[in-house]
C-alpha cells in the first residue's frame, strides 16, 4: 500500500505539534535561540518557494535571490521614502515580485532546461551588479537602514523592535505560508505541476498548457521568495546589495535539496539543520563550513531525496523487516 499516504498525516501531526510548541515558548526563549528560530522561519519560506519551482515543477533556477532582494527593497524603499505603513509595504513588495516574476518568468520559462538556469543566473547577476552600483537607490554594498513601522491590527499596535513581537510576526507568516503552499500542492493545480515534473511531454498530451502552469509556479515562487525577503528586511531593519547575491540563490538550492526536494517539508528541515550549525558551531569554530560541506556530500551520497529520503528509507527498511 502507499506508505506515503500515511506520511502527510504523520508529518502534519508533527508540524502541528511543533507549531504549538513554538507558539507556547515564544516569550520564554533565550534571545539567541529566538533569533535563530526567526531566521529559520523566514528562510524556510524562501526554501519552500524554491521547492515549488524545482521540486514540484522541475525548473532549476540559480537566481531566486533576485526576488529576495526585490522583496527586501520592495518594503524598505516605500517605508523609507514615503512612510507607508507595514502592511502596505509588504503588499508593495509582493506586488513588485509578482510583476517581475511574470516578466522574467515569461522570458525564461519558455526556454527551459539549461537555458533556463543560465537566464536566471544572468538576471540575478544583473540585479546584483545594478544594486551594487546604484548606490543612490540601494546603498550598494553598505546598504540602507530603515525604521520599521509598527504592526497595527485595528486599534492595537505592536512594535517590531520587540524581539518577542518579531518572533510571533515571523511565526504567523511561516505557518500561513506553509499551510497555503501545502494546500496548493494538494490541489488539482498542484497535481498538474507534479505531472509536469514527472513527464512534461505527457502532461502536454493530456491536455495541459504546460507553459502556463510552469509560469504560474515561477510567479508563486517569486511571490513567496519576495515575502521572505521583506520579512528579512523587517527583521534586520536593513537591506543591501548582498540581498541579491547569487550566493543566497545557492543557499535556497542547498536547503531544499539537502532537506528533500519536492516534499515542501524537506526545505524546512534543510534550513532547520544547517542554520543551527552556523549559529552554534560557528561561534566557537571558525571553520564550521567544513561540517556543512561534509553534511552536503554525505547526505547526497545516501539519498538524492535528501534527509527526508534518508528518513523514508529507514522507515521502509524497518517495515520490511
Amino acid at each position, binding site marked *: 500500500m502507499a506508505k506515503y499516504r500515511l506520511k502527510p498525516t504523520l508529518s502534519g501531526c508533527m508540524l502541528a505539534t511543533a507549531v504549538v510548541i513554538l507558539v507556547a515558548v515564544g516569550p520564554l526563549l533565550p534571545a539567541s535561540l529566538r533569533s535563530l528560530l526567526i531566521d529559520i522561519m523566514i528562510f524556510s519560506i524562501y526554501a519552500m518557494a524554491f521547492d515549488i519551482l524545482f521540486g514540484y515543477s522541475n525548473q532549476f533556477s540559480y537566481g531566486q535571490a533576485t526576488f529576495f532582494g526585490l522583496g527586501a527593497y520592495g518594503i524598505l524603499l516605500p517605508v523609507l521614502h514615503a512612510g507607508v505603513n507595514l502592511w502596505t509595504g509588504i503588499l508593495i513588495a509582493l506586488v513588485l515580485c509578482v510583476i517581475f516574476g511574470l516578466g522574467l518568468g515569461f522570458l525564461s520559462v519558455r526556454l527551459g532546461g539549461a537555458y533556463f538556469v543560465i537566464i536566471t543566473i*544572468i538576471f540575478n547577476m544583473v540585479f546584483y551588479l545594478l544594486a*551594487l552600483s546604484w548606490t543612490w537607490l540601494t546603498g550598494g554594498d553598505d546598504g540602507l537602514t530603515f525604521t520599521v513601522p509598527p504592526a497595527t491590527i485595528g486599534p492595537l499596535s505592536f512594535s517590531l523592535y520587540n524581539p518577542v513581537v518579531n518572533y510571533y510576526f515571523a511565526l504567523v507568516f511561516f505557518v500561513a505560508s506553509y499551510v497555503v503552499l501545502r494546500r496548493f500542492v494538494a490541489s488539482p493545480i498542484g497535481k498538474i505541476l507534479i505531472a509536469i515534473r514527472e513527464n512534461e511531454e505527457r502532461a502536454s498530451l493530456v491536455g495541459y498548457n504546460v507553459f502556463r502552469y510552469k509560469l504560474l509556479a515561477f510567479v508563486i515562487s517569486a511571490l513567496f521568495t519576495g515575502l521572505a525577503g521583506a520579512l528579512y528586511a523587517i527583521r534586520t531593519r536593513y537591506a543591501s546589495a548582498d540581498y541579491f547575491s547569487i550566493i543566497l540563490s*545557492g543557499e535556497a*538550492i542547498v536547503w531544499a535539496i539537502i532537506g528533500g526536494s519536492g516534499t515542501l517539508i524537506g526545505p524546512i528541515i534543510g534550513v532547520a539543520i544547517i542554520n543551527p550549525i552556523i549559529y552554534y558551531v560557528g561561534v566557537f569554530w571558525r571553520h564550521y*563550513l*567544513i561540517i556543512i560541506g561534509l553534511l552536503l556530500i554525505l547526505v*547526497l551520497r545516501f539519498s538524492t531525496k535528501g534527509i527526508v529520503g534518508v528518513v523514508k528509507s529507514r522507515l521502509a527498511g524497518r517495515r520490511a523487516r
Partner: protein
Amino acid sequence: MVPLGAEFTSRFLFVLINGFVWALIVALVALGLSFIFGLMDIVNIAHGDLYMLGAVLTWYGLAATGNFWLGVILATAVVGVLGIGLERGALRPVEGMPAYTVVVTIGISYILQQVVLAVFGGSPQKMSDPFPMVIEFLGVRYPGYRILVAGVSGIALLALWFLLFKTSVGLWIRATMQDREMANAMGISVNNIYAMTFALGAALAALGGALASPIVQVFYLMSYDLLVLVFIIVIVGGLGSLKGTMVAALIICPLESVMTLFVTPTEARVISFLVMAAVLLVRPQGLFKAWR
C-alpha cells in the same frame, strides 16, 4: 574623452596583451569545467577553488623545493589525484543530475576554502616573480613572466589537444562524451573515464591557478572573481564545445581587460554579461555547437 597618443597606445597594448595572457590561463580553467560538465553533467561550483588550490600548492611547492616550475608540476599532479578522489567519493552518486551536483560541489568548495584558510591563512600572499625579466617592444615594457606563462599555457593547450585527438585515451573520453551506452558496450570502462576526466578537469584548473599565482595574489577566496568569468566563457562558447570555450576566452578576456581602461572592473564584468546575453539572444546554444 579618450586621449590618444604614445602614452595611451602603450597602455592600451599593455592591457591588451594582459588580456590575451589572461585568456590563455582562463582557457585552461574553462576547458576543465567544460569537460566535467560535458561528460558528467556536473556543474562544478568548486572549480574556482581547485584553481585556488593549484596556486596555494604551488606556493608551498616553491617554498619546499625552491623551484617554481617544480611547484607547478606538483600542484597540478596533487590536484589531479584529488580529483579522482572527489569524483569517486562525492560526485558519483549525483552525476547526471546538475542541480544535485551544485549542492555537492558547494560542499566541496566550503571544505577546500576552509582547509586552505586554516593552513595557509586568510591574508593574500604575493608570490615572487620566477622570471623577473622585462621585455620591451613597441614602446611597451612588459613583464617577461607573463609572456612565459602565455607560452606555457599555449603548450599546455596544445598538449591537451594532442591528448584528446591523437591518443586512445582521448578517443575514449570523446566517445564516452558522445554516447555513453555505446562506449560501455565497446568495452570502455566508463567509470574510469569519469574519474580520469574529472581528474583532468581538476588538473587543468590547478594548472591555471599555478601559472596565475605570480600574477594575481594567492588568496583562499581567489575563486570568486574567476568562477563567474569561467562560467560566462563556457556558456558563450557553447556548453560542451572545446573550440567554443577557447574562442570565447580569446574574445572576452581581452575585451574585459581593455574595458578597464575606461570603466571599473565591476562595470567591465557587467559588459561581459551583456555580451553573453547578446550572444545567447542570437545563438542560444552558444557560439559553437557541442560535439555531444
